[in-house]
């Protein structure tokens, strides 16, 4: 028996937002849907959206799903997540967000969350009159003939979810789960992605070391400081209940505000200031000093 979370079972037994949305032709309101899957695959989702046109905000969302327990729960979760969001915000939702909302999904069921994300994309693209990406993906080389999964689709999901094994790809997009003839093909794609990632990393490292800190304009310097703060320093602090915010940069002096657990603890302040300084010096410019305000 699948080890479903309580949230999955709750949304399966008591699904929220199940049904369709009637188009009452109200002013400033559009009703659209997006669909993904088919009865052959064993799961299919049609996601309905009611959109306020002036603000591009999702007013309501309903689903119809043919599929298993987790497919129904994922669909219901998605409708809850996107209500009140703008279309741009909704497009930033990925399958992991759906899985997280559900308190996790068994690995072999992750494709249910991918289906939700794709139906959402299809519905929004449908509203915007954009050819859906799935269509573009359909045009790539067909890798898995059992489930009609193309190379671009495998690539996208593998990169987005940082998949490294063929089994993971099967769990996320089903490719390879039928006759298994394409397993070697999927492996080749993963090897390619890995090589591309390694090549990109080498190139970026080379570019960074080529760019002399002296050549940074004030704006570039501030941007870089913010980037280092956001990507390297804040995640570490937040894990301990703290946070840091950039207050100002004047010349080579970086003024920061320490918050939360770290701001209230005097003893750790000096150490903390020192380690932020060291990191900024190595990643941005050696002459920087950090002042806590």
């Amino acid at each position, binding site marked *: 028996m699948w080890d479903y979370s309580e949230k999955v079972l709750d949304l399966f037994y008591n699904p929220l937002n199940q049904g369709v949305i009637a188009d009452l032709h109200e002013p400033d309101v559009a009703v659209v849907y997006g669909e993904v899957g088919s009865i052959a695959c064993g799961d299919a989702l049609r996601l309905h959206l009611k959109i306020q046109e002036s603000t591009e905000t999702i007013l309501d969302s309903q689903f119809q799903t043919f599929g*298993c327990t987790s497919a129904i729960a994922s669909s219901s979760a998605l409708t809850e997540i996107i209500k009140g969001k703008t279309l741009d915000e909704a497009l930033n939702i990925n399958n992991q967000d759906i899985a997280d909302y559900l308190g996790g999904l068994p690995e072999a069921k992750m494709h249910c969350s991918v289906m939700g994300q794709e139906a959402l994309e299809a519905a929004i693209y449908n509203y915007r009159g954009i050819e859906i990406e799935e269509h573009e993906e359909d045009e790539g080389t067909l890798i898995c003939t059992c489930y009609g999964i193309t190379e671009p689709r495998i690539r996208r999901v593998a990169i987005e979810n940082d998949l490294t094994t063929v089994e993971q790809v099967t769990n996320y997009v089903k490719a390879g*789960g039928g006759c298994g003839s394409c397993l070697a093909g999927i492996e080749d794609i993963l090897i390619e992605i890995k090589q591309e990632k390694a090549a990109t990393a080498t190139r970026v490292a080379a570019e960074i070391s080529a760019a002399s800190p002296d050549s940074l304009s004030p704006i570039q310097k501030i941007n870089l400081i913010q980037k280092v703060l956001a990507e390297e320093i804040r995640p570490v602090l937040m894990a301990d209940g703290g946070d840091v915010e950039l207050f100002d940069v004047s010349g080579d002096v970086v003024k920061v505000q320490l918050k939360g657990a770290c701001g209230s603890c005097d003893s750790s302040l000096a150490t903390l200031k020192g380690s932020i300084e060291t990191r900024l010096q190595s990643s941005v410019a050696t002459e920087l000093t950090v002042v806590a305000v």
Partner: protein
Amino acid sequence: MVLYLDNNATTKIDPDVLKVMFPYLSEFYGNPSSMHSFGGQVGAAVQDARAQVADLLGAEDTEIIFTSCGSEGNNTAIHAALAAQPEKRHIVTTVVEHPAILNVCKHLEKKGYTVTYLSVDGRGQIDLMEVEAAITGGTALVTTMHANNETGVVFPVEQIGAIAKECGATFHVDAVQSVGKLPIDLKNSTIDLLTLSGHKLHAPKGIGALYCRRGFRFRPFILGGHQERGRRAGTPNVASIVALGKAAELARQNLLNVDRESRLRDLLEQRLLALIPDCEVNGGGTTRLPNTTNIGFKYIEGEAILFMLDKHGICASSGSACTSGSLDPSHVLTAMGLPYTILHGSIRFSLSRFTTEAEIQQVVDVMPGIVEKLRAISPFNSEQSEWLQGRDLVRAT
């Protein structure tokens, strides 16, 4: 409260079976091979159990080899058949076998054997003309199931065996699902090797038996000590063997009442089909086990149905892709050429001698509501649904 209608998956240990096996887990712990009377009395119990199993099958005691499970029996049988005629490199089986046969055959193909997989029709039945055409003088082994675990469809094994014998092939029958549900008389049979498993007939898990016809040149699969007349090494699982013996005796008695199970099964089918639109019995057009029904509920998915049933304490199973972990729906239902609308929504209910009419009625009471609820969520609910138009509903073979 558990309402258990998944007896083809496993069965409850009969209380009488439990009673007879317990002493062999406590006071009678001797090794039946030992040269003292403490072990000897245990050996006598094993011999009694062997006789009980032989009785159920119409076999002689020496023709019974105790094994650990059905999979061991099947692996052993295939190995023995190929070892008996090493010059022959051809196997005939069917597309609907249990993985304990199919995966062994696939493995053997890699080792240079040729395997012919016989097809089934829309009812899940095989075609004897195809059997006749497939078996040749070069065939070492013909292996088929007696009854299918998913649909309950019964194969005409004696007719298949007759063709196998004409060609000099060894004939093995995987009877894991049929022993105790259908009468079997191996005295007057074409079967050389037959597999059974204890936990399908109210004995515990981890015990099985392989019937091996007297005169068959059997070469063992598990090598080691001289147990089971040198045919299966390993200290015997005494308590479970005693249990299997008792279970076989009870099964033999129950064969006289098996009509009761088929009557309840038929009742379940008739009532569900009358109350729920768009459903049908898979394999309903041919001979079936008395205890099994496999019903396809169109436009909804089997795993979802199982979780709904689970909430009512009802245990059943499904051949849907989502239950298997393989992502592909049941190979048995797919081989029958069923449309996707049925394939994904098929549920197997399998009864036992403990099933009551009140339990059947409970399923009948909840099932229509479950189907209705899931169909309300589904984007398709009839063949006319616009999303189903222009799509292939049957897998191309």
